[in-house]
């Protein structure tokens, strides 16, 4: 290929590189908002420079930051704690002999992963709301409870309830990757175990589980590095004035102070804090992975 053709090739790719740069790199200049007291209508360069004022506010846990941080970490830890569930689900599913039944269960249980959080809310609302909720209506008509409980507007159940929602949405699909790993295990291993007289649970514990560990380990490390990002949508759709003390997480807080209350500086500072912490976490878990498994995850 001659030089002109190579330049032509580069020119063909250029518009796409421009898109990447515009939407991913140009906004990084906006990090400057974190260092000024923002006045609307004044160009960024003429804003009053305040240095690390807003980062100090983060470290002091000011403006509810400590509560929001607590909620974020609680939800992430609950998520990590329940992260073996897809493995258990995959192992149970692989024990089903009938291929048609297991395929059907797999399809049905992974659909919730592919609906939007708005739809998830719509569904949980129709099941748990005070007046129209199936659960309340059913329990009252069966005489199990006397008055309806407002689960969606409850402060006390909020974390547990969101954990249940996440499990409902994610377990079936989360199992898919483990099912593929189980399908890839050499059947000779099981045959050899049969000869040695191993029972069902021994085979699961000594063959299946260890072969799933590498995959689990990578996913676990990735979820640790994403610990500060619970996502905006889930917590925002389920938020209401009664449970906001428990369900305001960093991603929703960035929205509510940034766009809702126009506190650009503090919101941007939290965004930077999140980005920096997740990069540090990612590099650390990657280092850990190299040390333990001699394999990098990124």
């Amino acid at each position, binding site marked *: 290929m001659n030089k002109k*053709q*190579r330049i032509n*090739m580069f020119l*063909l790719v250029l518009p*796409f590189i421009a*898109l*990447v740069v515009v*939407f991913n790199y140009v*906004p*990084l200049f*906006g990090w400057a*908002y974190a260092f000024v007291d923002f006045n609307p209508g004044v160009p960024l360069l003429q804003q009053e420079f305040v240095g690390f004022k807003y980062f100090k506010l983060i470290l002091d846990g000011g403006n509810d930051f400590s509560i929001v941080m607590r909620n974020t970490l609680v939800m992430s830890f609950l998520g990590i704690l329940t992260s073996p569930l897809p493995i258990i*689900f995959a192992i*149970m*599913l692989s*024990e089903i002999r009938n291929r048609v039944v297991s395929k059907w*269960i797999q*399809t*049905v249980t*992974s*659909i919730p992963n*592919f*609906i*939007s959080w*708005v*739809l998830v*809310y*719509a*569904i949980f*609302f*129709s*099941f748990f*709301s*005070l007046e*129209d909720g*199936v659960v309340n*209506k059913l329990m009252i008509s069966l005489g199990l409870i006397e*008055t309806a409980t*407002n689960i969606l*507007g409850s402060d006390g159940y909020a974390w547990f309830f969101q954990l249940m929602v996440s499990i*409902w949405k994610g377990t*079936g699909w989360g199992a898919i*990757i483990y099912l*593929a790993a189980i399908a890839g295990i050499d059947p000779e291993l099981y045959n050899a175990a049969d000869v040695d007289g191993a029972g*069902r649970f021994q085979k699961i514990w000594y063959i299946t589980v260890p072969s799933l560990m590498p995959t689990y380990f990578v996913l676990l490390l990735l979820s640790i590095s994403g610990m500060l990002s619970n996502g905006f*949508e889930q917590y925002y*759709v389920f938020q*209401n*004035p009664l449970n906001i003390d428990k369900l305001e997480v960093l991603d929703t807080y960035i*929205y509510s102070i940034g*766009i809702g209350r126009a506190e650009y500086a503090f*919101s*941007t500072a*939290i*965004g930077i804090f*999140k*980005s920096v912490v997740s*990069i540090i976490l990612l590099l650390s878990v990657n280092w850990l992975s190299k040390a333990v498994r001699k394999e990098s*995850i*990124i």
Partner: protein
Amino acid sequence: MVKQWKGLLFQSFNSGSLLVFAFLCAYPFYYIIINSLSDPAESAKGIYFWPQGLTLSSYEQMMQIPTIFQSVFISAARTVVGTIITVFCSAFVGYMVTKKELPFRSTIYRLIIVTMFFSPGLIPWYMLMKTLYLKNNFLLYVLPGAVSAFFIILVKTYIESLPASLEESAQIDGAGVWTIFIKIIFPLSLPIIACIAVFTAVGQWNSWADNFYLVTDSRLNTLQYLLYTNLKSNMADIMRTSASGTTQGAALASAGKVTPMSIRYAITVITVFPIMLLYPFMQKYFVKGIMLGAIKG
């Protein structure tokens, strides 16, 4: 004998609990469908198994919502246009980064991949979108995700696994990069293109946060967002701490317009329907995409 009994016990317990979980995943969809097809008065009393007083009145009422057709159109448009743009851009860039002759090839590839690991944050992104006049602009739905790092990895890996001889023979015939991409690479990569297409299409159909952040013009609202606003119109129900009710809830109820439950069922059904209908056919592509991603990532 004992061993057989234990096996049977395990099998029934195992299938039993899996079926319970499958039921918990499937029944909510069924419940909403039967209630949307029932007489609202019957539905309020509780319908669990079969539609009561079969009627399409909820759907007729739903069609009275002034913006409903516009929202369906916007959702469909962003799904179709967004998918075409993302598939084209990501496939083309994915192909180009496999070409050794491309100047700065590895720099370009790294520049794209690194975007997976950091995020500029909401406010800088919001300001950028405003500066680019993408606020209240249909392009905001389809442009930002056009060149996706994850999809580029998938395409690159796939193309590298294809035999190089096919491309070389075309080059000898004097075909340019463009012709080779359209005539040879694209058709050969259809399995991975299908993966990208279903991932993008479902993502586009489900998106509402971009709509929520950046659109104030109701003509650009998506179906998801319409459902969201209709769900949130009934804050009164949430605000009551018990069945006796508080003044707070009553005040909210009288202040805001509340969408009846029956209409909400109907909007929920039309929003979830495309996914439920197509998911069983799309599943194998999702599985393939996640597997390829897992091997590489």
